[in-house]
């Protein structure tokens, strides 16, 4: 944890802070989110269960302080910004954890080409769902399977370049590439936990609970009883490459390939390297000024300890959303799978999940937002047999949230 934080702070200090900063150039924004819910299904994965949500039956009907998040944006010059984002999930984290901390440089280059560079720890810009403040969805409370997984295990700790070329007044073609470190155990939570629907973003250096199964004891080295996705295990950088086309912020399509290039035979401080590779496709289309449709598709696989675990995975969702004045309405349908290709019976990770989410939100006066959401989730997960549970689970949840934006 310490080396990681030192590296991030070091990277940020390398930025040209010499520019004149006035108080006007600092922005602090955040969200305080209080919720109540009714859940039906297995215990939450955050509560050592196999359920897909953040909260479970154990606190049905209680009013919970769900999270407090804040971000700081500091302009060190007109083309250079430092952004730091932190999240606190009472009862699920000990305090605030940094979720992003990076320097962004956007120089003025020419009429037709624009470059944008980021150095530090950040999300790759691939989510068409989480376009809201602090990497949340402005339409929904919960994230899709894909974005829940990204929130859990995927963060870029390194550098990214993004170059876009203006084809004409409306259209742009973009390319992006990144080299990163500290993402070697990524894939562990996906294989050993499966796909989920929640909104918990793992902090840099943070841990996630791991429900022990026989497979954990069968590994050559002793896996810690928690996931720590942001670790460097083999010293090798990973990379991603992408291509995107957009038209006047109304239509966007993007293709990306990610490979963490982790050495899956290596083990360090209780965590294995998981070689994780995937293709990711996302698209967003504004149908009318009010209606939009967007979705993401991911196809890849993760391997640990020379095929001790070898799990191809796929996930896709599509959301139809309406935004009119203060009203937001959205319907999301998703289907996800994990196949088990290895021959390790004590580590069977096969998982299929179908999820339907219907959400309505209303912007109240000034800085308040009221959200109502219902989710139905049917899943088949072979790992549940290790805890003498039925492999099939039907889960449902109704959530009411009141958010304050500052």
């Amino acid at each position, binding site marked *: 944890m310490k080396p990681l934080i030192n590296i991030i702070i070091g990277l940020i200090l390398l930025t040209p802070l010499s520019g004149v900063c006035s108080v006007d150039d600092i922005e602090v924004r955040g969200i305080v989110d209080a919720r109540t819910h009714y859940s039906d299904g297995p215990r939450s994965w955050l509560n050592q269960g196999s359920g897909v949500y953040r909260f479970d039956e154990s606190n049905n009907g209680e009013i919970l302080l769900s999270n407090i998040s804040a971000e700081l944006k500091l302009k060190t010059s007109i*083309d250079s910004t430092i952004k730091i984002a932190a999240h606190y999930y009472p009862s699920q984290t000990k305090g605030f954890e940094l979720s992003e901390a990076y320097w962004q440089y956007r120089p*003025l280059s020419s009429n037709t080409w*624009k470059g944008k560079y980021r150095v530090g720890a950040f999300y790759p810009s691939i989510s068409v769902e989480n376009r809201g403040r602090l990497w949340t969805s402005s339409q929904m409370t919960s994230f899709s399977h894909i974005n829940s997984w990204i929130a859990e295990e995927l963060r870029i700790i390194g550098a990214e370049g993004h170059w876009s070329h203006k084809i004409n007044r409306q259209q742009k073609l973009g390319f992006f590439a990144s080299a990163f470190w500290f993402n070697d155990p990524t894939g562990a939570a996906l294989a050993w936990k499966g796909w989920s629907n929640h909104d918990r973003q793992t902090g840099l250096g943070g841990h996630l609970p791991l429900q022990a199964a026989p497979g954990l004891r069968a590994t050559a080295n002793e896996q810690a009883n928690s996931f720590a996705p942001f670790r460097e295990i083999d010293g090798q950088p990973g990379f991603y490459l992408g291509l995107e086309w957009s038209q006047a*912020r109304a239509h966007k399509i993007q293709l990306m390939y990610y490979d963490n290039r982790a050495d899956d035979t290596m083990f360090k401080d209780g965590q294995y390297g998981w070689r994780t590779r995937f293709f990711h496709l996302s698209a967003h289309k504004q149908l009318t000024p009010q209606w939009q449709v967007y979705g993401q598709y991911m196809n890849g696989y993760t391997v640990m300890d020379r095929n001790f675990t070898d799990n191809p995975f796929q996930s896709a969702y599509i959301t139809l959303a309406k935004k009119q004045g203060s009203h937001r309405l959205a319907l999301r349908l998703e289907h996800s799978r994990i196949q088990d290709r290895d021959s390790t019976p004590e580590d069977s990770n096969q998982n299929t999940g179908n999820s339907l989410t219907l959400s309505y939100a209303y912007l109240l006066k000034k800085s308040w*937002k009221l959200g109502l959401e219902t989710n139905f989730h049917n899943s088949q997960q072979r790992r549940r047999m290790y805890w003498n549970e039925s492999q099939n689970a039907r889960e449902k949840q109704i959530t009411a949230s009141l958010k304050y934006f500052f």
Partner: protein
Amino acid sequence: MKLGYYLSLALVIFSSSALATITVSMKTGAKQINLPGAVVWAIPKDKTAMSNTKSAVKDMEQINRQFKPFIQVSQRTNSIRFPNRDETAHHVYSFAKGNNFELPLYKKAVPEPIAFDTAGVIPVGCNIHDWMIGYILVVDTPFYKQFSNETLTLEALPHGEYEIHLWHPALSKKENLKQTLNYSGQADINFHLKHKVRNIEQPRPPEQNIDDDQDY
């Protein structure tokens, strides 16, 4: 013959004194059209007719993440100021030949005006907000005006020979928008346009609510 789009620039000149008034209108076919912001300027052949009086500094504001006005016009060597009225920073620039500039404008910043020395069109953008676009037209004459409705009047023009120009970003670059006028009385000039007037409006900024992230 197929009826194409054309624009007629009708000039009615009152030559009762040494100073004339020109009334200008635009037409497609027989119908008058309204293209607000379009600029008409008259360059006299006799340069002594140009009284080089410096007009006041003009503004091109950034307000609600848009340029205001969308089209600004200025006489060569006069100045334009770019005040930022927003609660966010703008990085205003242009790569126009001879008139290129770059202005870092933090919240509510009011910078020193910029004098533009080269006549021509200056497309202005913001490096932070991609959709922001505005135009400055620098003309080498004090005789210019912008349409605000269907007719335009250029006043107090000394008698003589002029080049009359018309410009708007919606008008095709292939059009001939320049004609010469040598008048001694009343004159009508028609610009017959062979190309369609494009539907170019100032792009609207994306909606910004408390739950949106500006970076997307």
